[in-house]
């Protein structure tokens, strides 16, 4: 089946799995196909480039364990509920939290500043696209967590629950992130204009 086929949404996969139309393994692979990209994108936005692969594996191993005992929640008839995406998001949150703890413990052994100024590390951010790379650069971790989740379609209620916040605070962080990126892009555009004038 292609990406537009009948199992192209989480809701459809969960429904097909619950009805026995697809095996548990096939359903898992469909969910992996749907969400491997967004999960890796979250991790690439928040963690060091060379750590993201290991974190990605940890997230999916945890989900695989969960999937073996997966029970559909009563709200599964709502196509917007996305319980799997939500689970992957909060799992990524804990995986990142654990990773950040380890990073802090390793700090004396590594010069974090060197990692940031590594030309290869900077070049790798090109993957992100201009606005996303800017967001990674100027947003706080808290803002980035909310922004990335919103961009992947995680329900606002789930983001709020993951961080023990209200939905209003989540919305506020999202708007702050957007405003910060916009401000920086404007500054960049003005700088480029001035440079252009100076050259001519």
């Amino acid at each position: 089946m292609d990406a537009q086929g009948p199992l192209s949404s989480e809701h459809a996969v969960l429904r097909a799995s619950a009805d026995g139309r697809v095996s548990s393994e096939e359903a898992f692979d469909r969910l992996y196909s749907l969400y491997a990209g967004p999960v890796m994108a979250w991790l690439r936005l928040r963690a060091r480039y060379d750590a993201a692969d290991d974190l990605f594996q940890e997230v999916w191993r945890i989900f695989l364990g969960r999937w073996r005992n997966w029970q559909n929640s009563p709200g599964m008839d709502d196509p917007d509920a996305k319980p799997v995406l939500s689970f992957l998001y909060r799992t990524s949150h804990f995986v990142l939290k654990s990773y950040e703890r380890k990073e802090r413990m390793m700090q004396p052994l590594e010069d974090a500043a060197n990692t940031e100024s590594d030309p290869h590390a900077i070049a790798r951010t090109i993957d992100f696209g201009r606005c996303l790379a800017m967001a990674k650069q100027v947003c706080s971790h808290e803002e980035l967590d909310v922004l990335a989740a919103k961009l992947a379609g995680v329900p606002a209620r789930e983001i709020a629950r993951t961080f023990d916040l209200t939905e209003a605070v989540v919305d506020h962080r999202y708007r702050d992130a957007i405003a910060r990126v916009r401000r920086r892009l404007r500054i960049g555009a003005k700088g480029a204009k001035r440079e252009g004038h100076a050259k001519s």
Partner: protein
Amino acid sequence: MPRAKHNLEDQLAREFAALSAALKGQMRESPRFWGSQPLGPAGMCVELEEVRRAWQDLRRSPEIVRDAGQMMTPQWTLRDLASHVASWAREFRWEAEVSLRGEEVPYEIYFDPRLGPTEWNHARVAERQEQKLDDILSEIDAETRRMQELVLQASPERLIAPVKFGPVVGPDRRPLFRTLAELTGGRCFHDRHHLTRIAARREQLRQGS
């Protein structure tokens, strides 16, 4: 909403979708073939988070106030059962703290081989007799979050190092040695066991039996 604002949000969404698609293109093998590994700190936090949410859902559920005084087991109401879980949540967390310091728990909790730690259980439930159900559920929530923090602090060695914990079993008071990982797993198992019983009993009550 101004057009420029939409443009930036749309552009970010497009870039995120493009990044996701590019990264997905690099993934080949399903995680089903990666082989299993024991749960690390993050996995344990996820397990704890699942039970924390289940208690939160119970706390927010309709008719929770009415059900607080309903019998969930032959001897305990919902409030009593929550007190029991809160007391073990507190005990597990305390024992985890002791374990992280590399020490042994300096007291014993007697487990009858057939009946379990009945004396200890009843004493802890009695201690919470004056508390409201909401306060007890709030205690479970706070203890679970503290447990998550402890698990995240633990070094990989500490997570799998066996420690002598409080429970002793049988007439010869045989001590129990557990790792922090096992303690966390035990905490989640215990919570799930009672959550399942509560859900089943509440369903019976809803149907009028």
